[in-house]
């Protein structure tokens, strides 16, 4: 009897483990790697997105998301009409408040304008062809060097702040720093190099000697 119990006991344990494994495989929640985002939390059925043994297909996304009519889309997401590789940019199961988009620029076609999504920090001074300088994998420009100190074309890229267009502010500067040139032609605000140096905008060429 004891030896029979000894033989049956391990079989029962192994069967229990095998049963647990089958139950875990059949239960959707057991494989859930994390909560869905608030946009998708209503979807209860895993197979609504995961086609069994085939991963998540774009068709499953497009069953709910409509991109065929470009005019119905916000400008920043109009590129969806051209390219459909949802999983390249969108992720899930990262929590209710998680961001589920990380854009892969390499998927965009040439017709897409950067300014459709990005703010032009240069305020149009450099034109609209961002890709002449910027690459799509990094916003930084490789090997960029600021023009040397002798360069006087600052206004080609930089725009003076609003204060510099204020007559009172400008007259004070002219009074203090350009006394010698007083009476001559008015100094234009675009001649940044008269006060600023190139390696840091806040660095001034002139010392503020108030006793002067």
């Amino acid at each position, binding site marked *: 009897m004891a030896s029979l119990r000894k033989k049956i006991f391990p079989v029962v*344990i192994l069967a229990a483990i095998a049963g647990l494994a089958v139950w*875990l495989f059949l239960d959707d929640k057991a494989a859930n*790697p994390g909560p869905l985002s608030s946009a998708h939390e209503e979807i209860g059925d895993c197979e609504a997105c*995961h086609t069994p043994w085939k991963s998540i297909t774009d068709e499953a996304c497009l069953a709910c998301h409509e991109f065929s009519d470009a005019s119905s889309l916000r400008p920043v997401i109009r590129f969806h009409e051209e390219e459909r590789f949802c999983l390249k940019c969108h992720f899930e199961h990262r929590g209710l408040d998680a961001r589920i988009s990380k854009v892969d620029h390499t998927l965009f076609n040439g017709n897409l304008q950067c300014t459709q999504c990005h703010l032009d920090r240069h305020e149009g001074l450099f034109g609209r062809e961002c890709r002449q300088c910027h690459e799509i994998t990094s916003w930084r420009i490789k090997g960029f060097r600021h023009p040397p100190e002798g360069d006087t074309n600052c206004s080609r890229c930089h725009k003076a702040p609003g204060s510099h267009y204020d007559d009172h502010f400008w007259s004070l500067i002219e009074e203090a720093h350009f006394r010698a040139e007083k009476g001559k032609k008015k100094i234009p605000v675009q001649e940044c190099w008269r006060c600023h140096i190139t390696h840091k905008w806040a660095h001034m060429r002139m010392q503020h000697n108030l006793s002067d």
Partner: protein
Amino acid sequence: MVAKKNKTDVFLALFFVFLILGYLVHQSETFAGSFPGHILGIAGSAFIFLALLYPFRKRVLGKRGKENPLDRHILYGLLGACLVVVHSAHKFSSLIGVLTFLALLVLVLSGIVGKFLYRKVNRALRVQKGDLKLLREHFSKTKEELKACQFATEQGNEREGEGIVPEGDQDMAKACKDLLDEAYAIAEMEYSISAFEWTKKLFSKWVQVHYLLTFFLLAMLVVHVLTTFYYGIRWLP
């Protein structure tokens, strides 16, 4: 042999480094499901399966000792566990993932118990049995030579060797006292051996637990792999 032992210790240390320090520096939501993450997971599982060769060769093919070294089993097991820890990237969210990782952790811990305690108990038992045999042989031989010794049986006298005859013969009395001490040493060693044997018997259950944990890990591993394929692998086209 020494180099092999060092290797297992290094991998044991590595396992804990990956487990504890990795928690601080390598936590990722997506690494386990990425291409390099999967490669690490597959490699880790392959090493765990290689570790299974040891019990297979021992139980099925009957190969023991140098033909089937335990160190290789420990080495493959630890190497597999290290790779699986990195594969997990310390992301424990799905029930299956958590159970698989816990099964691995408990299995490694039970392996450590086996490596450090079970082997030590076995060795100590072997050494003590050898010592006991020598002591018994020496005792029987001396006892034959010292037939004149008669030991008091009253309590309290034994340790001091009092009541040993013949009285007056100091050398004889000392020899008889030594013989008595030897008898006590044999009794203590027998007690110690019985304790070690009890521990060894207990550890025979440990091997069963180790097997059970291995089966549990394999079952979880199969479910983990099946669900991964069922719900889809992102990096596959």
